[in-house]
């Protein structure tokens, strides 16, 4: 019985065995990997991406994904740095976060109320945000003036940076919302079967729209945090593949792109897996292009593995049923 439960756990969380294999490999082969400082470093470095991935997790469970993330981070980073001098730090950050939520709202309205394909909408918004970010920047970088702003990006409590504490906090909130609130359960229901959810009396349009806003807001927050971390913003931040990295992390974790299943801890696993692999490559002094290639191969590999596991599960279910 206990053995059985373990098996189900593993087949439901494919990311866990993969992570264990990677960690064991790294611990033996990679010098300097196995110390506490390094592991925390990986976590801290990937916290920004993780925060964006939480928003993306909500949206992917809902059955959609957001491509506009990739340039939205550039836009919000620009607003949070560029407005500091004229408006002060707090208003600048607030406006940047609002801009993120606003872009999410536009995406949400166009997808759920107007009914345009989500891929088209978010691809279009990606172009739009890219253009606006460039117009605002005029192809120059902005430097953050505020001490507190930069301090937030680089400061630490113990081994955790402020940003990674925020990430942990958002993970817990995300878990709570998805698991224990009507809104979270509606999200799962819509991702699983939108028509059934509608018939069950869920306001599918509103929930979908809200999930776009959540994703936009957290992407915006991610952009602001990148600006904090670097103390500056450039218009090309995130272009051209940030959204892809985030979506890949969510999917690698085990959340299905078809919607209806997944949780934020999977996403944490996906983010950490990509982060650890990057870290191993750095420690082994591998050229960056080799690590790009390994990243690509791992994405395909994990997807294959997931397929095999799913097929096994289906077979078993068929035999039992």
């Amino acid at each position: 019985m206990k053995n059985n439960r373990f098996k189900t756990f593993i087949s439901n969380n494919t990311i866990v065995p993969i992570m264990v294999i990677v960690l064991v490999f790294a611990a033996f082969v990679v010098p300097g990997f196995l110390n506490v400082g390094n592991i925390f470093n990986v976590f801290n470095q990937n916290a920004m991406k993780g925060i964006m991935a939480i928003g993306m997790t909500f949206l992917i469970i809902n059955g959609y994904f957001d491509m506009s993330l990739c340039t939205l981070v550039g836009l919000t980073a620009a607003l949070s740095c560029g407005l500091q001098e004229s408006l002060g730090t707090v208003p600048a950050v607030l406006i940047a976060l609002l801009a993120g939520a606003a872009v999410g709202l536009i995406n949400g309205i166009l997808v759920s109320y107007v009914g345009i394909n989500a891929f088209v909408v978010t691809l279009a918004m990606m172009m739009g945000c890219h253009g606006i970010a460039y117009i605002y920047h005029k192809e120059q970088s902005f430097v953050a003036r505020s001490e507190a702003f930069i301090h937030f990006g680089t400061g630490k409590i113990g081994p955790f940076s402020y940003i990674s504490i925020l990430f942990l906090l958002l993970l817990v909130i995300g878990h709570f919302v998805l698991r224990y609130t009507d809104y979270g359960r509606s999200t799962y229901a819509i991702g699983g079967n939108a028509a059934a959810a509608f018939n069950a009396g869920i306001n599918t349009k509103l929930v979908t729209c809200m999930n776009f806003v959540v994703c936009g807001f957290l992407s915006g927050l991610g952009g602001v945090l990148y600006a904090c971390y670097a103390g500056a913003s450039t218009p090309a931040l995130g272009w051209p593949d940030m959204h892809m990295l985030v979506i890949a992390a969510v999917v690698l974790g085990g959340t299905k792109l078809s919607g209806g299943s997944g949780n934020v801890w999977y996403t944490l696993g996906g983010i950490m897996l990509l982060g650890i692999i990057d870290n191993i490559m750095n420690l082994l002094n591998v050229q960056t292009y080799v690590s790009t290639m390994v990243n690509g191969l791992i994405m395909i590999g994990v997807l294959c593995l997931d397929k095999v596991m799913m097929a096994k599960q289906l077979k078993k279910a068929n035999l039992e049923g």
Partner: protein
Amino acid sequence: MQQSGGNKVLGTLKRQGIVMALVVIYILFAIASPQFRSLRNVILILRQVATIGVMAAGMTFVIIGGNFDLSVGSLLSLCSVLCIGLHDRIGPVPAMLVAIIAGLASGAVSGFLVGYLKLNSMIVTLGMMNVIQALALMVTNGRSVYLEDTDVWFCQIGKGNIAGFPISAVIMILYIILMAVILMKRKYGHQILSTGGNAEACRYSGIDDRRVLLKSFVLSGLSAAVGAILLSSRGGSAQPTVGQSYEFDVITAVILGGASLAGGSGNIYKTFVGVLILGILKNGFVMMGFPYYVQWIAQCLIMLVAVYLDMMSKKKKGAA
């Protein structure tokens, strides 16, 4: 996709919708900028869109099959550096063949993963994009490659003219006609259209949907290779990241052309109209003296409006 009388009329109307948009955008720019409306600029636009036009023709097949191919941008980079890097060593024709084989092979790999293993095309081709980009950087060690002498016939493909008309545009138009014939007149075209519409039904009627999907990715890879030949021969040089973010333009053009993202419908000629709209936006704003990034905002708005109008026209069809 039956070609009943009503469908045909509506199809023609819809095609004219996007063509009308093209005409309106052209006229607006022509009024605003005298440089834009010169014949020389028209020819320049045709030369500029040659690469995207060829790639979009291949992408149309993938999107009709209900998938995406995000790897075409980096494949464009890889094939370009192969073409230029090998030109002086093994001669132009073998170099082009190597590039085309690379395109076919990469398409076959993504096609196998998507068609036979049934993996999600977005993540697979994203992975392939990383792998191919890395290959392009490895082949060149991250440096740009140049031709020793740009006065060879290979460069004429990109730079030369036939009776005042750019050779690359001629190749693009021939390629698009070829692809359109495959889509509309050949057996394979019917197979991909029906597979995109309903893969399961196809399987039951005896079509091997796995092979059909694989072939669509092979066509997309081939198109990226041909696009790379047109692109690299124009300047006689290639950077290992030259194709970055091309995939977005290519997919945008196909969407503007009205192909359904759920698969099952699409038209190469309309895709070409989408390509022309993108080309005119890129060229027009620069000609009017705006910074190049204004085109992205225009691209955003036009895409949303075009897809919205397309959706409305389909709804009306449903109501009638």
